[in-house]
């Protein structure tokens, strides 16, 4: 079974992001880049499906500039068999729909039975690409999955998606697309052997033209970034615990009107 995993490179969660000079993108100086954490759940799940079935291929795909190679290599080190790098200035201002169109074109070429994505990339937090891919491909889709099982003959996948108050379990005929939620699995660390072997694996560079796509303006454009307004200064309530608690409740009730 061929499984394709779409991953994105994002700044590490500990990064203090700052607005860049153009006011529309972040200042990338000194940033540590990582594979978006939810995408790691997707990679791990794809590898587990392959291992459980004893055969198959896991292909990692990512869209972005040259630096993205590093994220791709860490997926190869984890165990993905090969990778495709969608790297073209035409995608510099890609919104979720542009990204989904590029990925959909690759998926049509590769024809995997299953596509896994993370629930959202932790940079723009849009969480839309999985659903938009499903739409462009005309595939069934399950969001925020907490568990999945591909049936023995590789014809369908049973997935449990997280909803308010419970899990909803569905059977999806393959090909299908799933978005991984935290808790689906515990991603492995790449082993040293995996890291050393990664450079022998293929990373195919793909341009928009290779997919028959041109440069289109994004449907959603960022017109500016801004820092959050600073919070008003707070106060530490002094006194012994009973007195401090009384004062806190009074303040929440009378000053903040929050209770």
């Amino acid at each position: 079974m061929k499984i394709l995993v779409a991953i994105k490179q994002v700044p590490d969660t500990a990064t203090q992001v700052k607005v860049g000079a153009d006011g529309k993108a972040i200042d990338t100086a000194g940033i540590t880049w990582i594979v978006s954490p939810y995408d790691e759940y997707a990679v791990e799940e794809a590898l587990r499906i392959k291992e459980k079935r004893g055969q198959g291929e896991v292909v990692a795909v990512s869209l972005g500039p040259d630096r993205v190679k590093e994220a791709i290599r860490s997926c190869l080190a984890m165990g993905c068999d090969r990778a495709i790098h969608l790297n073209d200035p035409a995608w510099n201002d890609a919104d979720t729909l542009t990204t989904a169109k590029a990925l959909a074109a690759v998926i049509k070429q590769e024809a995997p039975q299953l596509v896994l994505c993370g629930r959202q990339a932790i940079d723009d937090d849009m969480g839309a690409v999985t659903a938009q891919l499903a739409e462009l491909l005309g595939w069934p889709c399950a969001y925020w999955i907490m568990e999945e099982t591909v049936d023995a003959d590789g014809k369908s996948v049973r997935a449990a998606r997280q909803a308010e108050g419970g899990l909803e379990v569905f059977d999806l005929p393959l090909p299908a697309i799933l978005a991984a939620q935290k808790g689906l699995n515990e991603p492995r660390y790449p082993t040293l052997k995996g890291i050393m072997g990664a450079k022998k694996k293929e990373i195919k560079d793909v341009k928009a033209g290779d997919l028959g796509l041109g440069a289109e303006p994004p449907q959603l454009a960022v017109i500016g970034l801004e820092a959050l307004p600073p919070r008003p200064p707070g106060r530490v309530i002094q006194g012994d615990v009973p007195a401090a608690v009384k004062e806190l409740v009074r303040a929440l009730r009378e000053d903040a009107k929050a209770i």
Partner: protein
Amino acid sequence: MELDLTDEQRMIQAMAREFAETAIRPIAVEIDREARFPHETVKRMGALGLMGIMVPERWGGSGADTVAYVVAVEEIAKACGSHAVIMSVNNSLYCDPLLTYGTDAQRERFLVPVAAGQANGCFALTESQAGSDARNQATLATRDGDSYVLNGKKQFISTGREASFALVFGQTDRAKAHHGISAFVVEKGAPGFGVSKTEDKLGIRASDTAELVFEDCRVPAASRLGEEGMGFTIAMGTIDGGRIGIAAQAVGLAAGAYERAVAYARERKSFGVPIGQHQMVQWMLADMATAIDGARLLTLRAATLKDAGKPFGVAAAMAKLFAAETAMKATTDAIQVHGGYGYIREYEVERYFRDAKITQIYEGTSQIQKLVIAREVLGRTAGRSA
């Protein structure tokens, strides 16, 4: 001169850092307090390939280089000095000589399981009267037909209690002094081989330090590493490589303490400002940062020379000397930055301080490193003037 890590080295560093942060740091306090060998994490390090980094895949290892080893040990040591020494002993003091001097049959049997992380190896050279003066071996290995009979005691053996394989040095020919020393691989459970005690230590408390006893312990001749009389050469060559590992451990301990000091200096306030705004604290942090970087560069240079197949003994001695001294100074100053809290176990910097002390002692004390360096310096000068 190339100062950038390769992609692979960077990824290994990132993996080691992530593993150290998530799997080792949370247990570091507890295993230190209880002096408990961290079996579970060491096993995981083995599965990740961290216990046989420089051994080719053919022999169960990861097929990476010494530079990768150095950056990985540093990351592990940042979280826990004990894990770092367990790793360093296995990689440098056991796998390295087995790879260099072992026959294919010996590598298959004694190296593959250890490099693959399924078992641990240790290095048994030191004796009560043979520390810095390692030539003075009292352990005897007497040839008897197809085997040798070992008698003697080995002291301060890192991982000695936990290891499944010990590389043991003993005298096969007393008359030849250190040219009569030979090396043997002895398996745990061999009749006559036992662990007589485990030391209660100041630092690296989760790594066991054991006394090994050999009483009429019969070792097959096939388990002798190298030729008879080659033992001392094997030991010295091995320790040169080991010093790179210990230098990396020292850099990691210094860097771990330093990172905590920086974080504390940003948060802790005195006289209305974070203490990092005070010049006295800034000076300490600046000195630490500079020395740590220097120690790291010396260590990487020694590793690079080793990877290039060039002589690296003096470079390793310099790296180990400077890194150990830096570790001691940086961990002392990290406590100073923390003030009274630094002296309290909860704040952890005191553990780095306790762990750092051993780096000035084992695998050649700082004084021995100076001896090695001075010998080279004087030898070279003499050569030029002659």
